[in-house]
């Protein structure tokens, strides 16, 4: 009877990893998975890395669970006699130190360049770096976007710095509606007006904190047009959950048209010039 219970527990511990793996297998079909494929080239590389890690991790998971299952089952059957008297094995310790460290070191070094491309400003695509698209300012609980005037051409680093420090007359403003062109890398500056926020666009696989007092450049590139989500990923107060905005990726022409329309509507002061005699009364 005791043996039966022992075997029950042996099976019990082997049962749940099977359920866990199965639930991961069915997850993409049930939409318990990424919100669609990555919509930016860097996002695609992040996804590739994720799947690479997932394969390694799953292999290790299965191997350790099988090893555990084996020792548990064997140990459950051994209800009499004595246990194996051993203090360990130097050879095994060496093997399971060196092999994992090789795998881990590979994982660490293999991923460095994606990180560098995402965050190290000097590796940003030059065209994006020289012509910043916008300045995104987070505040409780909304996103404020400032574009330079559509015809504004930046002449070097100092010019960009000046634009960041001093708003210009031709700047265009929107709130909670961030438009970007597709098909080319774009860079924008992230800042915060009050507390810490984080710019998170799950479809583009972009996340970056907006830190009070810092101006942080980030870049991305939308492969295809569409309305993506923009939300806050760093606790910023009671309304953290509702810092919801639209990130609309549009083809270049549509984007330029959007900027011009924005300019027109912003320059429109609502004053209709007098055109007929009724004004004169």
């Amino acid at each position: 009877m005791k043996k039966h219970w022992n075997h029950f527990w042996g099976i019990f511990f082997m049962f749940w990893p099977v359920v866990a793996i199965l639930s991961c297998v069915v997850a993409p079909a049930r939409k318990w998975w990424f919100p669609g494929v990555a919509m930016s080239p860097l996002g695609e590389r992040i996804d590739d890395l994720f799947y690479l890690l997932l394969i390694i991790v799953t292999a290790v998971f299965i191997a350790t669970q099988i090893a555990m299952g084996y020792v548990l089952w064997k140990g459950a059957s051994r209800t009499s006699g004595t246990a194996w008297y051993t203090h360990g094995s130097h050879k095994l310790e060496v093997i399971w130190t060196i092999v994992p460290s090789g795998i881990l070191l590979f994982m660490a070094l293999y991923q460095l360049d994606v990180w560098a491309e995402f965050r190290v400003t000097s590796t940003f695509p030059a065209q994006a770096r020289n012509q910043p698209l916008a300045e995104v300012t987070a505040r409780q609980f909304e996103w404020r976007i400032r574009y330079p005037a559509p015809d504004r051409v930046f002449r070097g680093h100092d010019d960009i710095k000046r634009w960041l420090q001093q708003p210009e007359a031709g700047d265009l403003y929107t709130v909670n509606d961030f438009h970007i062109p597709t098909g080319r890398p774009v860079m924008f500056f992230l800042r915060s007006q009050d507390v810490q926020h984080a710019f998170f666009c799950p479809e583009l696989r972009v996340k970056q904190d907006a830190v009070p007092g810092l101006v942080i450049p980030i870049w991305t590139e939308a492969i295809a047009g569409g309305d993506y989500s923009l939300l806050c990923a760093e606790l910023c107060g009671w309304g953290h959950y509702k810092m919801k905005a639209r990130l609309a990726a549009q083809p270049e022409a549509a984007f330029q048209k959007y900027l011009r329309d924005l300019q027109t509507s912003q320059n429109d002061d609502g004053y209709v010039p007098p055109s007929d005699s009724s004004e004169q009364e």
Partner: protein
Amino acid sequence: MSTLNPPANAPLAHDDHAHGEHHELGFVRKYVFSTDHKIIGVQFLATTLLMFILGGALALGVRWQLAYPWSDMPIFGRLIFGAEGGQISPEFYTMLFTMHATVMIFLVIIPILAGAFGNFLIPLQIGADDMAFPTLNMLSYWFMWPAIGCFFFSFVSGGLTAGPGNGWTAYPVLSAIVSASPSSESAQTWWLIGLTFIGVSSMMGSINYMTTIINMRAPGMTLFRMPLTIWSMFITAILQAFALPVLTAAGFMLVADRMIGTCFFIPSGLVVNNADPTVGGGQPLLWQHLFWFYSHPAVYIMLLPAMGMVSDMMSCMSRKPIFGYKPMVYSLAAIAGLGFIVWGHHMFTSGMNPALGMTFMVATIMISLPSAIKTFNWIGTMWGGRLQFNTVMLNCIGFVSMFIVGGLSGVFMASVPTDIYFHDTYFIVAHFHYVLFGATLFGVFGAIHFWFPKMFGRMMSETVGKVHFFLTFVGFNCTFFPMHLLGIAGMPRRYADPYLHPYLEHLMPMNRFITLSAAVMGFAQLLLLGNFFYSMFRGKKVGRNPWKANGLEWSAPSPPGHGNFDFQPVCYRAPYEYSSPEAEALGQDFIMQVDPPPEMPDESPPDESPPDEKTDT
């Protein structure tokens, strides 16, 4: 059986003194303001178990909101938020998860490991009569109460609907400027003061543990004969002592920012909640560095002691020496050492210098190496063992099993590129619950069942223990495994209503399933509590060594009297000599650390007066 081995059914001697100093203590000095490490340990244990229920209730509040957002909370809704019609307000939601983390980390896990088990086990396992500084030890417990008071006051000062709502990480500027989170107001300050008291309590404990372990070991108890529990407590105490001052200093700086107008963490020119622009010149990232410089080692403070205790219990329940004792010690030390240089992995998306991201990533990934070595050694320990599938062992296997998942899911966050996506999603919530609950708390549940007979001289119910384990394990996995999927689906943490965002709408059924599982798991803890308090008075009485274990603590009476040992313990061998030829020769599968080797009976002083006779004098 050796003559030295005290008989398993030795009479329970509550007042046996090792020193012969007979002074009767009053009730207050004996059980309330006690300087006896065992009483203090039990005080810590009882307090933390009650806090555990409170923290769990807060978690269920969080889960209610995620499953049924903005709907009336059953029973508690009317009581607490009558004004809002029984709904959880967004402010209250931020407070719920803040206080859940605060209670669980600072009032449950850290004190239950170091405070309860550290206090109870260290002198017993190294053969000392008490801690090095008994009064300091008493203070370390009683300093927890002002902390609890401050946390509780921060809870209720705003009339139960507002409180510290800035997360347990309390990132400035949100936590530094009062107008940034109006509902927190003075509560956040009280919270920070409570944190400081907890720090003082931990610091007193850690100084005591280090001193005791270094100075008060019994004759023959060399460093490499110490049980792994002691090694882990020792290393944890060192971590605590070096990391904690940083948090304390940071806490005072934040209080100063809030109360006296300094600007350590506040940059200039911020317009918070339409208040006047700030004038500071501070840097919010400074807090994150200081905070995580403590709080990352704290992750190991919350894990290493459980690792040590599980090693002890697993070796005993496999009737087999621990596999690779020295690699286990070295990997503990390696985790602790590397633990000091990985704090930046909490800040990959924070905007710190990207070069730091790279170094922290390499260090973080490499810290999984010692953890992997430990896991392999635990599996090695069970390999070829005669496993005893009792509550203790089940919880230990649960520990290893869950620790593997927690370790592996950590890889995704340790890697900066994937962390860009997973940072602050439910993936991280799943990960740290697998480590802190799945690993640490299963270890603690095992330890409670294992050392309970030593604490009270009675056994806990095995059947109830197994049912508790079964429900907790199933409930735990049903609660936290799906959170990985929520994280992959991009659900951010700390959202009062994720379904506001269209791409998360379809996750509500899964969240309801999680909430249901969490409720099952939560209510299952009442079994543990019931079993604990019932067995304290009604459990089956046992002798000194009910588990046939080897450690020094099992040669003392159960419960040990004042001064612990009724004889001078001498340690003759390594801690895990189960099924050794030496033991076989005695016709048993264990040989205690205090049993003298048969070939040298004359040289051992205790042999002249066996302990069971000495108690009679």
